[in-house]
């Protein structure tokens, strides 16, 4: 071993030692974050995806140096994920458990029917000492039913505003197809989210865009026979068919439409939640051409990286799951801004700081661009219109970019969510 290599070895060794010493002295602290969502039953994929994104995001931050805490030391995220089974009582138990332990904040849940009671047991108004609700911040990534964060000042959501999305979509459709006059709606009637989205969002927004709603067909979450509904749809012969239902019945209806040769003349619009793997898995052929606004598409380098990392963690990146990535980044920023300490004795104080910090935000960075935050703790996220094309979701149009991509086949659309 000559002198040069010896020096090199020494240098590397001392650097390593220094590094170790540094890590030891900086008293790295753990920031405990909890994820919760459904990992069983028909909605299992939501929880699996959310957990994958959550772990990918926190590992990514931890690997790039962690978070600087209020006293200058470095904090590393630790994520624990809890399965709610999409059950209200389990959701409540989990949040009580998190609040009694030293978790800083929770990200979740995936199911709106868990979000409702979980937000309900939080303190409604901050600082209201007569209200014995839990004082624990929850930052939702998945549950999308309209207006949930209103329930408590401790509840925040980073889910797309369906209202803004469908408003823009129907206006865009009206501009694009001036000859299109009529809309026919299909709604999964017994599910809170899909029902809300048709009656309070799609229907109203299509009327505002000067369409005439010529009829609506209704079905239930686990219906399998749609002959009668689709016949109504056929009779109405509308230019646009707008379906507000989840993948299983969406596929069932689309298949029945194919059987009865029903094809809307101008466009077929779907529910945000259907822009996922499940629809492609179930009925790629029949879903061909369906247009769905979505708040996630790997249209830029970062979004692509998130999609890849998520796949590595065993999940699929879609509009529901990728919100968790943004949530983690927002949480990191708030920790820094609010000087959160992440010490065992400051838990309650830290939670309050997190809440106040989140409440203060007027906008945040998101994977698809800047996300505006509203007074009632909701988000208005940028979005694109996606369409199903040959077994994959492709971006049809990006309203944020003035240079609109063409609607027809020649679009250089980015394929995402490749069919497994």
């Amino acid at each position, binding site marked *: 071993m000559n002198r040069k290599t010896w020096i090199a070895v020494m240098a590397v060794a001392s650097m390593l030692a220094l590094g170790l010493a540094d890590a030891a002295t900086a008293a790295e602290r753990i920031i405990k974050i909890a994820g919760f969502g459904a990992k069983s039953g028909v909605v299992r994929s939501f929880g699996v995806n959310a957990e994958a994104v959550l772990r990918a995001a926190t590992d990514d931050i931890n690997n790039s140096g962690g978070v600087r805490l209020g006293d200058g030391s470095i904090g590393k995220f630790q994520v624990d994920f809890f399965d709610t089974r999409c059950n209200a009582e389990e959701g409540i138990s989990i949040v009580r458990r998190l609040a009694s332990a030293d978790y800083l904040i929770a990200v979740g849940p995936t199911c709106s*029917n868990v979000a*409702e009671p979980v937000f309900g047991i939080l303190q409604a108004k901050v600082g209201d000492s007569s209200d014995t609700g839990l004082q624990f911040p929850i930052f939702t990534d998945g549950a999308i039913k309209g207006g949930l964060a209103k*329930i408590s000042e401790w509840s925040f959501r980073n889910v797309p505003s369906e209202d803004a999305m469908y408003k823009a979509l129907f206006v865009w459709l009206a501009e694009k197809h001036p000859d299109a006059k009529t809309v026919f709606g299909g709604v999964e009637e017994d599910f809170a989210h899909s029902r809300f989205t048709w009656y309070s969002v799609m229907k109203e927004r299509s009327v505002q865009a000067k369409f005439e709603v010529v009829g609506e067909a209704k079905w239930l979450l686990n219906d399998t026979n749609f002959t009668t509904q689709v016949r109504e749809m056929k009779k109405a012969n509308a230019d646009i068919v707008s379906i507000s239902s989840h993948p299983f019945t969406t596929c069932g209806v689309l298949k029945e439409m194919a059987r009865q040769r029903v094809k809307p003349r101008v466009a077929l619009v779907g529910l945000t939640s259907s822009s996922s793997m499940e629809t492609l898995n179930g009925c790629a052929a029949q879903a061909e051409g369906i247009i769905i606004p979505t708040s996630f598409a790997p249209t830029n380098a970062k979004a692509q990286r998130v999609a890849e990392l998520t796949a590595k963690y065993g999940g699929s990146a879609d509009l529901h799951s990728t919100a968790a990535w943004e949530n983690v980044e927002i949480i990191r920023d708030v920790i820094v801004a609010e000087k959160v300490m992440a010490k065992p004795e400051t838990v309650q104080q830290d939670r309050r700081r997190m809440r106040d910090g989140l409440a203060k935000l007027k906008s945040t960075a998101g994977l698809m661009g800047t996300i505006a935050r509203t007074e009632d703790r909701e988000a208005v996220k940028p979005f694109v219109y996606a369409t199903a094309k040959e077994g994959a979701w492709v971006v049809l149009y990006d309203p944020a970019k003035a240079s609109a991509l063409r609607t027809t086949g020649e679009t250089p659309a980015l394929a995402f969510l490749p069919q497994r």
Partner: protein
Amino acid sequence: MDFYIGLLQIFGIHTLLGLSAYLLILTGQVSMAQAGFFAIGAYMAGICTAMWGWHIVPALALGGLLSGVLALLIGFPALRVKGMMLVIATLAFSEVVRLFFFNFNYTVLRDGIPIGPIGAEGFRRIRYFPENGWTTIEVSLFMGLIVLLVGGALWWADRSRLGAVVRAVGEDELAAQSVGINLTTIKVAAMTLGGVIAGIGGGLYAHMTTHVEHLNFGILLATFAIAYPILGGMGSVFGTLAAVVFVQGFLVEGLRFLGDWRNLLFGLLIMLAMNVRIKQLGDVRLRNLLRGLFGLRRRSHAGA
């Protein structure tokens, strides 16, 4: 700590649900109607406190009463059938109730916010407990008191002549009739009382979760209601209580550390429990234990 105390609330509510089914199974009726009664109690009590501003106690009472009246009304036609037919008939009833609330809209404005059941979107802000400054411990104690009252009353009645009559009906209807027991009275009374208990449980449920929607009261809930007493053996109310703790405490919360395996084990362990005949899960053993603890001896017979 809060978590464990909160878990007691879940135990309490499910115990009431299980006891309402226990009572019916004692008379030999397996009823899936408990989910329906539970739903009626939940919505009614929620309407009372959140919309009409009532105190929790009369709200629960009205919820229980309404469920009881309905149980009485469906008791007569339902009792024409037995066994599997009764299971399906009562399941049909539960579904009708669920679908009724699915179509049920009734809201009032409170602080400018519409509040009340809105069909499929459910009924939120049933926040009587937090709004009135009840802490988790107080809520748990309140629920515990109700469970103690109901469970205690059932336990006591179980050991009286009434209990023997009820069990006689459950064991052999023909023989019971032949010794002059009026089957209809006993069964309808059990159905009614079961309805009241499930209704009270439902009212507590609504106030614990703060939000109810029709999907909460489906077949799965009805199944759980009958699963507790069956799993606990039919020896006494303690069996049902033990089964609730086993399911909600062990299978649901206790096995959480197993991740995905928890869900797989859930059904599997219930099936296994039936096979290895822990027929009286805690029942005989627990009863003996409690006897030992409190120095109670086997009662020779009433009064003697």
